[in-house]
């Protein structure tokens, strides 16, 4: 467990530091724009009242808008999952599968978060703040945790080394 914990922290801090660099931001900013586009598309599919501009999402009817900032684009939860999967001893094929499924699970729930916050914000500012700052942050991390636990349970368990047979003569040195 110690090896996993150290590797996890090193990888996570490295990924977080990279996220802050210009190359990291060159990936994160367009991604956040895509999240805003996808959220607007999802809302339009139901009531046709949203459009996105950059990383913001607006309502045509009320003029209400939300901006998707760091922490709301699902990137941090994906980095935590990435660090958790990379740090855990497992075959590379399973790591790639775990990451792919985890990314979809996190981003799918993140879309639900943004759409729900978009409607909550138009309804009640206090509920919006609660859901935004406390409830959804917890739920997204729980999502990453569930994916990681399920992934760990899917890894074949390491085999115990066979015990020497009592009748077997000791090997000569």
């Amino acid at each position: 467990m110690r090896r996993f914990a150290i590797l996890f922290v090193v990888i996570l801090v490295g990924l977080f530091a990279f996220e802050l660099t210009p190359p990291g931001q060159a990936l994160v900013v367009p991604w956040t724009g895509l999240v805003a586009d996808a959220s607007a598309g999802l809302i339009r599919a139901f009531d046709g009242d949203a459009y996105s501009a950059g990383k913001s999402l607006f309502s045509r009817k009320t003029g209400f808008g939300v901006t998707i900032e760091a922490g709301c684009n699902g990137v941090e939860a994906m980095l935590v999952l990435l660090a958790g999967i990379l740090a855990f001893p497992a075959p590379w094929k399973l790591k790639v599968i775990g990451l792919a499924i985890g990314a979809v699970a996190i981003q799918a729930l993140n879309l639900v978060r943004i759409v729900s916050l978009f409607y909550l914000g138009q309804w009640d500012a206090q509920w919006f703040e609660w859901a935004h700052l406390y409830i959804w942050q917890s739920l997204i991390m729980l999502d990453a945790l569930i994916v990681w636990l399920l992934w760990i349970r899917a890894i074949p368990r390491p085999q115990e080394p066979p015990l020497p047979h009592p009748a077997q003569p000791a090997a000569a040195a």
Partner: protein
Amino acid sequence: MRDLARRQVFLVAGRALLMLPIFLAAWYFAGTPLTWVPGVAATPIVRVISGGSVAMQQQGRDIHYTVKLEAPYRPGVTPRVAADVEVGAAKFTYGIALFLALALAARESRDSVAILICSVLLVVLPALGIAFDALKQLGATPGLQPFLGWGIGTREGVALGYQVGTLLLPTLGPVALWLVLARRLWLPEPAAQ
């Protein structure tokens, strides 16, 4: 066997989801001590990194720091300045609710002494986020740079500390502590031959 393991994960998650609103409500009503303790614990961090003297005041779930800074000594004059920053502590302290929901959701982590120790840690842990939020605000205040004297390394360190303290620690801290408590749930056991 795998279905059983999967079911166990979903059961823990389901129970945690049911308990989370209860513990979030409890956290909300315990706001004053849960704000004061990390606010006090953050004060020396702000003092060391800013290089000034720091006074803390609590107002509800907000913490105010008054930071008094001095520019490097020049003959005949020592410029001084005082800056006020306000940090909303609630966005750093709610992780204890997530931890308690997870800890009681899994049989493997229901150890009252360990839960108490982890809870104490989670009351103090938000100090990092609070301190770096205050430091980020100080760094962004126009005219303070000559008094702070931060190099590029310190500025980048404060930016990283703020990101980690705001986006990661409030939720990752409780989850990490729970994983330590519930390690029997996830640490691989060797398969029998």
